[in-house]
């Protein structure tokens, strides 16, 4: 795909240098997107309410996702391969402990340590072979199998990721399932190119789990949408085939379309598309 992907520019420990790391503290748009995705990932974790949990953040970077965890009262440990990003995390005074570690070399924690695992925009990096000795399949397997043992029975791991291609996503899920995980992929806003977000939702030691529904998908939308009865025949007989532009129906239809793409849409009321009084 495009050369604009950070993954195709340099290995993660080199790409996330000081300059790149600083963006994560100064660029409000980046912060907003990261925070939004972290909150959704935490929601997908489905942790018990009102209790502090011990969580792991893989690829914690400057600790933006960790801050969301702290806000909800959880204790977390983060790991990242970029020391520049971790220095930023240190300067930001985040609440968790951070380690410099390569996820592809395995997770160095005792069995049953964590109530949940989140990871924001990090997993796709493991698909790269940045060194001669790197084998993406082996690295992914090592990561998932050590992660599986570090998690508690019945806990979840949620990874937000940007796969380069469907094959890459399949590569990742195959290795996860091979390591013993159950679960699958949850896609939010599949109809939109911009708001579309892919989450890999893995379950540790649960038989036949039910995957949560993605936001803005057909299934979720059908809950509040009924089949519309269109009086097409009547319209044809009266010769009103061309609907007037920006009629109420057209506006409502457009709103639906934008809602499916995950954009913010105003409420539909009796005032929607109503004609204004003529004024001088």
């Amino acid at each position, binding site marked *: 795909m495009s050369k604009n992907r950070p993954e195709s520019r340099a290995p993660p420990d080199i790409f996330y240098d000081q300059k790149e790391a600083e963006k994560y503290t100064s660029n409000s748009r980046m912060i907003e997107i990261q925070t939004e995705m972290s909150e959704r990932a935490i929601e997908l974790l489905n942790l018990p309410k009102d*209790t*502090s949990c*011990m969580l792991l953040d893989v690829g914690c970077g400057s*600790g933006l996702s960790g801050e969301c965890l*702290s806000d909800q009262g959880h*204790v977390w*440990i983060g*790991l990242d*391969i970029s*020391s520049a990003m*971790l*220095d930023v*995390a*240190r300067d930001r*005074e*985040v*609440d*968790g*402990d*951070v*380690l*410099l*570690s*390569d996820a592809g*070399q*395995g*997770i*160095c*924690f*005792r069995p*049953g*340590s964590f109530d949940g695992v989140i990871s924001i925009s990090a997993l796709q990096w493991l698909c790269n072979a940045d*060194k001669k*000795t790197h084998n993406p399949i082996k690295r992914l397997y*090592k990561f998932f199998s*050590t992660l599986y043992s570090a998690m*508690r029975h019945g806990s979840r791991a949620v990874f937000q990721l940007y796969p380069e291609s469907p094959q890459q996503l399949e590569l990742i899920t195959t290795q996860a399932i091979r390591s013993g995980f159950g679960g699958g992929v949850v896609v939010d806003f599949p109809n939109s190119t911009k708001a579309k977000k892919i989450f890999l939702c893995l379950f540790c030691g649960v038989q036949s789990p039910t995957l949560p529904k993605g936001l803005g998908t057909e299934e979720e939308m059908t809950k509040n949408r009924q089949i519309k009865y269109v009086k097409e025949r009547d319209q044809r007989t009266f010769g009103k085939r061309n609907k007037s532009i920006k009629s109420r129906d057209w506006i409502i239809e457009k709103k639906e379309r934008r809602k499916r793409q995950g954009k913010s849409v105003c409420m539909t009321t009796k005032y929607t598309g109503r004609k204004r009084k003529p004024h001088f």
Partner: protein
Amino acid sequence: MRLSRFVNMRLITHNMLTSHVKGVKNGYPLLITAKDVKEQEVDFNPDFVSKMITRIEWPALTKAMEMVGKTDLLPTEVPKDYETDNDFLKKAHHALMEIEIISGCLSCPETGREFPITNGIPNMLLNEDEV
């Protein structure tokens, strides 16, 4: 209210870390050589501490306390009714959450491989031949 803190390695993290060098069978607990240790106050959450007691290796924690030079602060064993023992929970909280290592190193008990801690961040990266 949350108190802001600097990121340093706490003993709760040490209690979960193992050595993942290739071929190591029992890389736990990691030995601590601490150069710089700091204490920082953190809010006490009795529920969280009592939840963590069940999954913490108590002998490893008492050993870690000795290695950072804080002896005689913890009982050698977890009391049976630890959930209601507020005094004990406070001690455990202090050991787990408030003692931080800023610099020093961790070493694998089996191979002796050293993982340096600089600025409170342990470096767990392995060389290619150790994976």
